[in-house]
């Protein structure tokens, strides 16, 4: 899988599909990223530019490395025993693996929303205000209130919770909890939001709300979403990257990937021909 001809072919596919947005500004740039879990190599030479203020979807079968790669971008893999990341990832040109980098600050710039909604066991208000408070983003209660309100509004949750901000976040429905987690993520004004299958535990209506929200958020944030739903990737993203066996197989405009992919592996996966 990893021989020279395949990587040459891969490069050809990448450059071909990317003609469409050469002018777009890259927010996150990964170069030759290799990830190991102990002996096992999970990612092979992944190089990708993530365009700012757009949605990039990562798709691929389970174990293809898409979540692993997502977690490299805010260094969540640091917490995994035996995980080694090689190669370079930069955010606006700053090497995020530089020894001098403050990981806490990085995670304020690169927020994350997980598969299962995971509000803190605190009030709705505290869920959203916690981040801005510890990062010192608000001077006083009034400003904090404003951040909480605007974050909840941008997450499309304000109308539903404004009269019960002191109730526990865990008392909300699944879809509301996920929007609360998004409000919590955007409260610290991140630049990039990583979403790891954010709708897989939600019903179709809650899913539609989150998708609508993603579409609104991309005006101000760079969003990367990992999803197992091809339809979701097709609906919400502008660019799609297909991973397979730890390799970034193809990256292109979402429309092109889903109607006319360049690589046979992409075609086989998205049309349901993979074993």
């Amino acid at each position, binding site marked *: 899988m990893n021989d020279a001809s395949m990587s040459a072919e891969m490069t050809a596919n990448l450059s071909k599909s990317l003609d469409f947005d050469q002018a777009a500004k890259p927010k996150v740039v990964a170069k030759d990223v290799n990830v190991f879990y102990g002996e096992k190599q999970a990612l092979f030479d992944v190089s990708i530019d993530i365009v700012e203020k757009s949605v990039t979807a990562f798709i691929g079968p389970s174990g293809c490395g898409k979540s692993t790669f997502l977690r490299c971008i805010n260094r969540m893999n640091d917490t995994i025993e035996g995980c080694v990341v090689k190669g370079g990832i930069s955010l606006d040109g700053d090497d995020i693996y530089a020894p001098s980098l403050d990981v806490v600050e990085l995670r304020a710039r690169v927020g994350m929303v997980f598969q299962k909604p995971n509000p803190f066991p605190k009030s709705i208000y505290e869920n959203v205000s916690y981040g801005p408070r510890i990062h010192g983003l608000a001077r006083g209660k009034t400003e904090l209130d404003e951040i909480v309100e605007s974050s909840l509004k941008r997450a499309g949750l304000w109308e539903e919770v404004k009269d019960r901000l002191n109730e526990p976040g865990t008392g909300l429905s699944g879809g509301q909890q996920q929007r609360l987690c998004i409000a919590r993520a955007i409260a610290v004004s991140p630049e990039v939001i990583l979403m790891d299958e954010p709708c897989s535990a939600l019903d179709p209506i809650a899913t539609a709300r989150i998708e609508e929200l993603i579409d609104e958020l991309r005006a101000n944030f760079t969003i990367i979403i990992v999803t197992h739903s091809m339809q979701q990737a097709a609906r919400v993203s502008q660019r799609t990257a297909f991973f397979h066996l730890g390799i970034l197989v193809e990256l292109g405009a979402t429309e092109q990937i889903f109607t006319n992919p360049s690589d046979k592996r*992409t075609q086989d996966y998205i049309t349901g021909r*993979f074993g």
Partner: protein
Amino acid sequence: MATNEHIVTSFDDELNGLAQKIAEMGGIAEQQVGESVAALSRRDEALAQRVISSDKRMDQLQREIEDDATHMIARRQPMAQDLREIVAAIHIANDLERVGDLAKNTAKRVFAIEGNFAAQRLVGGVEHISEMSLAQLKHILDAYTSRDLDSALAVWKRDDEIDAMYTSLFRELLTYMMEDPRNITFCTHLLFCAKNIERIGDHATNIAETIHYLVTGIPLTDERPKKDESSVTTVEYSDADD
């Protein structure tokens, strides 16, 4: 057809079913076109009636293909090649249904020209153009079955021959009408038949464009060479005695 199969085999069955229905429509269309012109040149009303009746099956098949395709889109959410297969099937069924309608229209004129004793030589040109259209139709159906882009493009390019033939037939029939006004009814019907047949060629090129999209994923946007000049053609009335 894609070489390897889907994990969900019933999806393959559905795609194959769609292609089979297109093949059936193609077979009927070829038969209709051939028989409609045979009926015209022999004034064979029984044969003409058969062409007219077989159009019901065409309409039914087209509806079935549309229904099947809609259900597949709703249930399978097809992507990439699969999506193009289904979209192509809808387009091609539509074109073939129109081919059937045009053949049916030709067949109906067999009844209208009954009792007209114009010379058989007038029909010769229509027979000739229909041979060309029928060959185009046959080639394009083969190209669809084998997903053969090159032969689809060959059909696409060759349509200008039919157009040129139609333009010259147009002149010829106008000339006959001027020669003897008793030819007018018959020649007008023949002209419509020729136009029907020329349109069948156009549908073959539509199918060629669909095959291009189906195989490559890219729409064929080039302007096709056109030689149908009948819309700007005039024939001077040369009888100076009048």
